């Protein structure tokens, strides 16, 4: 018997289903878009009504000229350093939380793969003892990072009062959750061959971690931590709005006083700060790579 003509053979998708999927997709997309438009009360017209136009004009004209008097700038030195220090201390706290929890939450160290095959095979109790800390660490990390730093800040304001320390705690906890998760994923995705060879010399898991895994992962770990520090600089400015000090608090005050020319100066300083941090971390990444 001759084989059927390949061009007539049944293909995984017939022409009809090829047509159906895109149509369904676009219908769903349109429905979601219209629904969101209404629910989010999108009214572009408001921006162009007389009232809106007047307020915008007031805001924009009020921005010029920016406030650059020496007194004002001198006054900003302290909030500027406060913002930097909140971001640095927040990131340090995040590392202190994220690194140990991230190690506990690394599956290839805890219970899977070549490093654990002989240790836990054939015993449910040993497997459970290895899995439990992993699950706990992963859960804690996910609670830490799923609550936004803003919400953490509101909680810590109750505990330690207004001030920079609230910002440090909020950034430390929520970023600790993010760092821990990403650290564990970086470690899990490393090549396993060097670890296998180190294990074959009779090394324990912790020695393999220190001697093989961390040196391999170092550029990625440093790079992601620096990226988080950049985010922390921006976050510490935002947290100032709810009383955590720093540049954000000044922006909020100036806004409330309708001193838009001060706001411009503050935003410019924030922009320069973030750009400087960006530059610094790029240099640091290059040095480690």
């Amino acid at each position, binding site marked *: 018997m001759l084989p059927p003509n390949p061009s007539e053979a049944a293909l995984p998708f017939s022409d009809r289903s090829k047509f159906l999927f895109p149509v369904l997709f676009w219908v769903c997309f349109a429905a979601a878009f219209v629904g969101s438009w209404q629910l989010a009360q999108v009214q572009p017209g408001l921006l162009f009504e007389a009232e809106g136009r007047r307020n915008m004009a007031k805001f924009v004209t009020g921005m010029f000229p920016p406030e650059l008097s020496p007194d004002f700038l001198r006054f900003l030195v302290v909030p500027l350093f406060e913002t930097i220090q909140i971001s640095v201390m927040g990131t340090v706290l995040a590392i202190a939380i994220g690194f140990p929890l991230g190690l506990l939450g690394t599956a290839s160290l805890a219970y899977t793969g*070549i490093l654990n*095959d*002989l*240790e836990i*095979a*054939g015993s449910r109790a040993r497997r459970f003892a290895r899995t439990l800390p992993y699950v706990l660490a992963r859960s804690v990390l996910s609670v830490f990072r799923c609550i936004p730093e803003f919400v953490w800040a509101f909680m810590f304001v109750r505990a330690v009062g207004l001030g920079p320390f609230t910002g440090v705690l909020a950034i430390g906890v929520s970023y600790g959750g993010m760092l821990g998760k990403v650290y564990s994923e970086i470690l899990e995705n490393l090549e396993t*061959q*060097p670890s*296998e*060879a*180190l*294990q*074959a*010399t*009779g*090394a*324990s898991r*912790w*020695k*393999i971690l*220190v*001697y*093989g895994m961390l*040196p*391999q992962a*170092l*550029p990625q770990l440093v790079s992601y931590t620096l990226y988080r520090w950049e985010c922390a600089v921006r976050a510490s400015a935002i947290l100032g709005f709810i009383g955590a000090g720093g540049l954000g608090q000044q922006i909020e005050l100036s806004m409330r006083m309708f001193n838009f020319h001060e706001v411009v100066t503050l935003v410019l300083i924030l922009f320069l700060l973030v750009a400087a941090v960006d530059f610094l971390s790029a240099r640091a990444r290059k040095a480690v790579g």
Partner: protein
Amino acid sequence: MWSEGAAEPVYRLEGLTKVFNGTLTAVNGVDLQINRAEKVAVIGPSGAGKTTLFRLLNLTVRLTSGRLWIAGRDVSDLRGARLREVRRKIGSVYQQHNLVPRLRVVHNVLAGRLGAWSLPQAVRSLVRPRGEDVRAAYHALSQVGIPEKLWARTDELSGGQQQRVAIARVLLQNPEVILADEPVSSVDPTLAHGIVRLLVDLCSAFHKTLVMNLHSVDLALAFFPRVIGFRDGQVVFDRSPAEISDDLLTDLYAGRITGVSVEESPDAAAEPVRSCTPILRS
């Protein structure tokens, strides 16, 4: 355990079996005995289970059934510190050399001591290796012919040089047995010859046992007094090179010995691997 039982075989395997995921049988009921200071080559087609056998012998993967004695000790159920103590006595050389690419050569060579070091010692050595360790690493690198690479970054070396670093690591580990899994598959034939000879000579000089998986039949026949043919997770033959005929090799790679018919690539079967590196036979 190693000094007292000199009469004991280094390896004794009884019905050693490894099944992956409950379905894939990689090593299937192997009975084998390997004595102290013996040099054994294991040859066979890809997918024969040689690498799994290697990983069973260096205690990386757990056996599914059967028993395994190392120097007279049943190691089937070892774990923790006692498992690591046995692993320290077995040096491994891999196909992909398995070095830590971002570390300097000196650290990769000293990794042979990792099993013997404490964790703080390991950290301190990474920060700044001790003078006597550096001298030992230099000595090991001299034995494999690349002492000048001591402070080079490992990922900047060529494939052959990295394999030499891996051998220097085993020298520092100073094990009783050296296992090598296709150590020359990723280097060119002339280098391959040199690296196999290096391992064989080192084992002769220090009275170590050597078990090497090899892709090249020529190298196995040229350097090893005992050659094991391995196929479908089983030992097909186990004899000296003089007793190994071309027909036996053709059968090993074609699969006629175990009665498995060859469905794919009859060309490969007609031409045994022996002919790939004819120069080395002279």
